[in-house]
């Protein structure tokens, strides 16, 4: 082995291209160091360090948004840096920022160690960022497992609560099963794509581009189609598409609220990032398979999520099921993406809208949760508008945006998805989506009703509610910013509007 080979590879392993991920990794390690070096009293530094660090990384990403790596492949084709990848980086960093903020509030009510939480959140976020830029099935699997195993831990983090552990176990078993399915799918794809007897076979069978050209040469290979559906089932688990959504309410309820938010926003988004890159590039030539599958996923997910949420009282389960319906909406966008040029932009816009609104709601939920994080009922919201109008307002804005009511940004997301779907001619799915939206109004409205309309006067026989955490300045600013941007982006998109333009 001569040294030039190594040099070539070294030249190809452009670590600078994944600077933000590396910074996150370093930040995660630094947190551990802080915990070791400083006495226990100063451990509140940890979340602050995480927040400041995240802000720095975010700043870095934004500053180098149009860096020269965009549009190129690095690490021998393991990664491919695209504008979408950059967008998702911003997305995951924002989400991580909010998760850390909420964790600060939530962990304060627990007797759990702190630093590991932030550490894992940072590492998982880095994993997600890589996942969104992955260009190789191997890296896809490895990064996905990093994310997943991190989430197993996070979900069961409040181990004093047996419900949380139960949720962790359920998530673990189902997650591992879906990982197995995904893996077997990858293996099958790898196997057929490298098979010398087939036209277009390739030595780099895990590379997206190579695999795509192989699949294009063999548009009806049975094993490949089985591999594709197995990969899709693995991704479907991540995004909670019917029928792989069944874990959602249980796990969302059991998980600590910040982790629920992490699952609901980041984990779902990463699933969509992967699904988009797979369906638009790798599996593009298997439209005959992809379209019906995505259509089925979208329709069934939309309906099931909304219907199951209809009578739900536990807000964590409720937001989980509503999240399922949002996944259905996004799937509608993915189904449209192959035919409608603006669908991809719509999906990203929707994801951001979903991020803003979800974290607004989760922020309120975190403040309303008691020490028992799994017990969050709609009844606890009674009179919120009176006792804490700020949180009530944030909640209303968030829920309104989730429901897709103008002038909130969630409406714009839905509008763009609708337009894309119409351009793609998915009329049946649009009908389902309309039904879904109408049904969803019921439970979102019920939640707002609980917070605003009911029992302004506190009745003495009302069931006891967990004590509400007062809002501190930083979280308050963050929640306010979320609500404000949810409102403002609803009618003024400004330069962000350019994202949506067909490319």
């Amino acid at each position, binding site marked *: *082995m001569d040294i030039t*080979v*190594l040099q070539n*590879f070294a030249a190809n*392993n452009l670590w600078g291209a*994944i600077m933000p991920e590396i910074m996150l*990794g370093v930040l*995660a390690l630094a947190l551990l160091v802080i915990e070791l070096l400083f006495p226990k009293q100063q451990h509140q530094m940890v979340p602050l360090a995480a927040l400041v660090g995240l802000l720095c990384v975010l700043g870095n990403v934004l500053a180098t948004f149009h860096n020269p790596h965009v549009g190129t492949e690095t*690490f*021998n084709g*393991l*990664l491919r840096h695209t504008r979408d990848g950059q967008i998702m980086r911003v997305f995951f960093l924002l989400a991580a920022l909010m998760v850390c903020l909420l964790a600060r509030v939530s962990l304060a009510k627990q*007797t*759990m*160690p702190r630093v*590991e939480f932030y*550490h*894992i959140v940072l*590492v*998982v976020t*880095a*994993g997600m960022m*890589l996942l969104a830029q992955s260009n190789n099935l*191997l*890296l896809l699997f*490895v*990064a996905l*497992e*990093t994310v997943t*195993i*991190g989430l*197993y*831990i996070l979900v*069961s*983090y409040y*181990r*004093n609560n047996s419900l949380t552990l139960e949720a962790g176990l359920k998530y673990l078993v189902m997650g591992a099963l879906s990982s197995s399915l995904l893996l077997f799918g990858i293996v099958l794809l790898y*196997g*057929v794509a490298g*098979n*010398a*007897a087939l036209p277009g076979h390739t030595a780099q069978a895990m590379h997206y581009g190579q695999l795509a050209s192989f699949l294009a040469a063999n548009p009806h290979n*049975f*094993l490949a189609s*089985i591999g594709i559906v197995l990969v899709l089932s693995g991704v479907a688990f991540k995004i909670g598409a019917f029928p792989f959504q069944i874990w959602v309410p249980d796990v969302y309820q059991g998980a600590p609220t910040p982790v629920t938010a992490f699952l609901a926003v980041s984990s779902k988004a990463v699933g969509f990032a992967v699904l988009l890159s797979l369906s638009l590039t790798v599996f593009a030539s298997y439209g005959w398979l992809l379209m019906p599958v995505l259509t089925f996923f979208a329709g069934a997910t939309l309906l099931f999520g909304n219907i199951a949420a209809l009578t739900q009282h536990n807000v964590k389960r409720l937001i989980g099921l509503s999240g399922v319906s949002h996944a259905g909406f996004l799937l509608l966008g993915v189904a449209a993406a192959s035919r409608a040029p603006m669908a991809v932009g719509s999906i990203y816009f929707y994801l951001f809208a979903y991020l803003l609104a979800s974290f607004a709601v989760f922020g309120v939920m975190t403040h309303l949760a008691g020490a028992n994080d799994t017990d969050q009922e709609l009844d606890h919201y009674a009179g919120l508008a009176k006792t804490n109008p700020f949180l009530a307002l944030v909640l209303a804005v968030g829920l309104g945006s989730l429901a897709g009511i103008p002038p909130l940004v969630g409406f714009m997301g839905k509008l763009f998805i609708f337009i894309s779907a119409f351009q793609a001619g998915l009329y049946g799915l649009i009908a389902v989506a309309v039904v879904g939206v109408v049904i969803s109004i019921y439970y979102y409205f019920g939640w707002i009703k609980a917070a605003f309309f009911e029992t302004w006067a506190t009745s003495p026989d009302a069931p006891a509610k967990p004590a509400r955490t007062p809002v501190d300045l930083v979280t308050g600013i963050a929640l306010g910013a979320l609500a404000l941007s949810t409102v403002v982006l609803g009618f003024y998109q400004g330069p962000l509007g350019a994202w949506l333009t067909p490319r």
Partner: protein
Amino acid sequence: MASILFLLFSTLTVLCAVGVVVNKNAVNAAGCLLLCLVGVAGLFVQLDAYLLAFILLLVYAGAVVALFLFIIMLLDVQGRQSFGFSGITTFAGLMAFALLLTGLGTIAVKGHLDAPRLNRLAAEGANLKPYAQQLFTTYLLPVQIIGFLLLIAMLGVIVLSKKHATEEPAK
């Protein structure tokens, strides 16, 4: 000769896998898993992946199965409970069995792959060098990621297992 070995190892693998599934006793199931792994390692050898066979035995048999046995002992689970299937679960199980077999059947029938004979191909996996070269050049990034994966897994296990000073005394 080789086909006899293949037959032997594959039979061992499959039977032991079935053993894992049907054994009422968890310890026995773990034993079956161990034997199953040996069978797979044998198949690896058939495929000239000596290193992987070795690692499989080392990691799985040496670490994972041991861990399983250790936990089984620790928890002292009464693994002898009967399956206790009611009508509906039996039905569901049978249905699942039928469906899975159907799936398997279709893969066997429709998923036929033409491939050249093994002996006409260079056994790249037989040597150690390509592994090293690939891991440290092409797949360096995943290796790094795996490092972080192991780190957080470790931290996670600690968090989930260690008793904390701040924690309230166990009930």
